[in-house]
């Protein structure tokens, strides 16, 4: 540690010097024992439930046997990866993941911005506030509840089906139809999180200097040109930051959402990387292969964040982290 180097230079026992130079490590440890004690549980948590599992990824290279533990399980090199890449179900999960991610980028990503622009254009603050409270609510309920609510409205025994049957039409069961499943999934994400996603855009819009609009209007810019030249540039930075975050997380397309509905529509339609890892790694006990899939996913995710951030910097934006 660099600390001990500077500590050895400042002679202990000369109080005048300690005001300017860093006191020795021993003294700093003693002076800060309260702080160190406060840090201890948190540090233990991050080591135990982040860094140790991180190292535990070694089971991706092992023939892991739960009864022996991961210290004793034999190393098998890249065999798990070979098995993984030879599994057609894995590639199906990859394909599904990418397809759902693309749908979300196209339909879900711009939705909060659109809603923010709409709400921002409302004049009455009371209506604005009312609409805001309503669209925020679904963010806070669990995915189990979201799926339950959708089932009650759109399921085979749900509200819409009941209504159709009462009127002599055939019922429709959107909840268990694999062909419309991508639409359902995207619809649920929008329903749940459009309000939450909107907040940050609304804040950016609230900070636009109103006199910019006025001068633009005086210069003859109409409604749409003002939006193009004043409003959209104001949300550009936020949009790019959110896009980078989204890209970095693109392989996690709502694990619980898929897990909860996989039974209803079948694995072919609803298997994504995370559910693949859960079923193959934990349920079927293929620990090594599951860990290998998780590692592949993690590495690609990290590369995506890094790459997307590079692109954001190339466009002169901050991205998620600087430099």
């Amino acid at each position, binding site marked *: 540690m660099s600390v001990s180097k500077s500590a050895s230079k400042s002679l202990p026992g000369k109080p005048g010097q300690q005001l300017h130079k*860093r006191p020795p490590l021993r003294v700093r440890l003693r002076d*800060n024992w309260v702080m160190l004690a406060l*840090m201890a549980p*948190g540090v233990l948590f991050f080591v135990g439930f982040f860094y140790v599992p991180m190292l535990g990824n070694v089971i991706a290279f092992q023939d892991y046997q739960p009864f022996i533990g991961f210290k004793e399980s034999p190393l098998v090199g890249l065999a798990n990866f070979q098995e993984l890449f030879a599994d057609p179900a894995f590639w199906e999960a990859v394909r599904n993941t990418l397809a759902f991610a693309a749908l979300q980028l196209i339909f879900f990503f711009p939705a909060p911005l659109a809603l923010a622009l709409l709400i921002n254009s409302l004049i009455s603050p009371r209506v604005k506030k009312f609409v805001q409270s309503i669209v925020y*609510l679904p963010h806070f309920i669990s995915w189990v509840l979201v799926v339950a609510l959708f*089932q009650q*409205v759109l399921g085979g025994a749900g509200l819409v089906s009941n209504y159709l049957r009462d009127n002599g039409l055939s019922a429709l069961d959107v909840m268990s139809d694999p062909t419309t499943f991508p639409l359902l999934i995207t619809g649920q994400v929008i329903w749940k999180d459009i309000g939450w996603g909107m907040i940050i855009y609304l804040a950016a819009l609230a900070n636009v200097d109103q006199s910019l609009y006025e001068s633009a209007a005086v210069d003859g810019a109409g409604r749409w040109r003002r939006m193009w030249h004043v409003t959209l540039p104001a949300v550009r930075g936020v949009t790019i930051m959110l896009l980078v975050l989204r890209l970095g997380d693109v392989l996690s397309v709502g694990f619980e959402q898929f897990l909860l509905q996989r039974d209803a529509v079948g694995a072919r339609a609803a298997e994504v990387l995370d559910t693949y890892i859960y079923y193959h790694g*934990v349920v079927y006990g293929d620990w090594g292969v599951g860990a290998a899939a998780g590692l592949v996913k993690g590495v690609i995710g990290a590369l995506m964040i890094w790459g997307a951030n590079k692109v954001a910097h190339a466009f002169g934006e901050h991205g998620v982290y600087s430099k």
Partner: protein
Amino acid sequence: MSSFGFPLRGKDERRRVREERPAWEEPPSKIGSAAKAVVITVICAVMVLPFLTVLSTSLASREEITASGGFVLFPSEPTLDAYRTVLSGGIVSRAVVVSVLITVVGTALSLLTTIALAYALSKRGVPGGKPILLMVLFTLLFAPGMVPMYVVVKELGLLDSYWSLILPVLINAFNLVVLRAFFMNIPEELYQAARIDGAGDWRILTRIVLPLSKGVVAVVGLFYAVTYWNAFFNAMLYLNDSGKWPIQLVLRTYVVQNKSMTADQLGIAHMPPQQSLSMAVVMLALLPILALFPFLQKYFTKGVLTGAIKG
């Protein structure tokens, strides 16, 4: 508000700006305003309707449910029978107790550890502070993966223990960053004054820092509480014993997967209609969130913004 480091306009100021259409803005066309009104109304209806359906069906009587074929939008004689049934002992009542306990204990522990670490990391000169901060920030970019997590929880002997629902998610790095940012914004003079008065780190935390950060601590606490209440997957992963299930897992089994609750599991002889029982369970899972929503609504905007700007 400025202490959040984000120049939000004050309420009154914003109202003044948007109360009336400014003189330079052209009046909206009739079709435009009508279209806007329709779109907004549809959005609100789509958001609210599922909640209403669930609430009214949970309150409906057997006759009404049979007559309507399953769903009732306006129950003529609301009854709490379904709630009485699911709460009269048995699997749902137990799940509610479990969820409440996990939420209360989990939130308390999470707050304690998060505040402690955030406070220590907000001060300069604490040995190891910088590497530990980096260590925390790194966790925001990467996740260790489900299988190794399961293995660690298993090897720690936490399977089928309620600790498996709390310890692996004890500290959320995002919440930590928010708290630390707030603590760092407390004026340095306050700390110095306290030190001159002879207060140590512990006294400064409990007597100065915490009273000043009540608001942000409340926000972080709400976030934790909602996360604990809503958690479902960890319980499914780590708890094999269905007698230990929290409400979300019960909800999944009996409502989403549509297994029917037998009189035996509920511990009663006389059964209200299945549909209203299911909806009563949905409402039970929903109620705490609805009760907290006014606070969530009020505070979380700030929380999101602070995190987004600082993190």
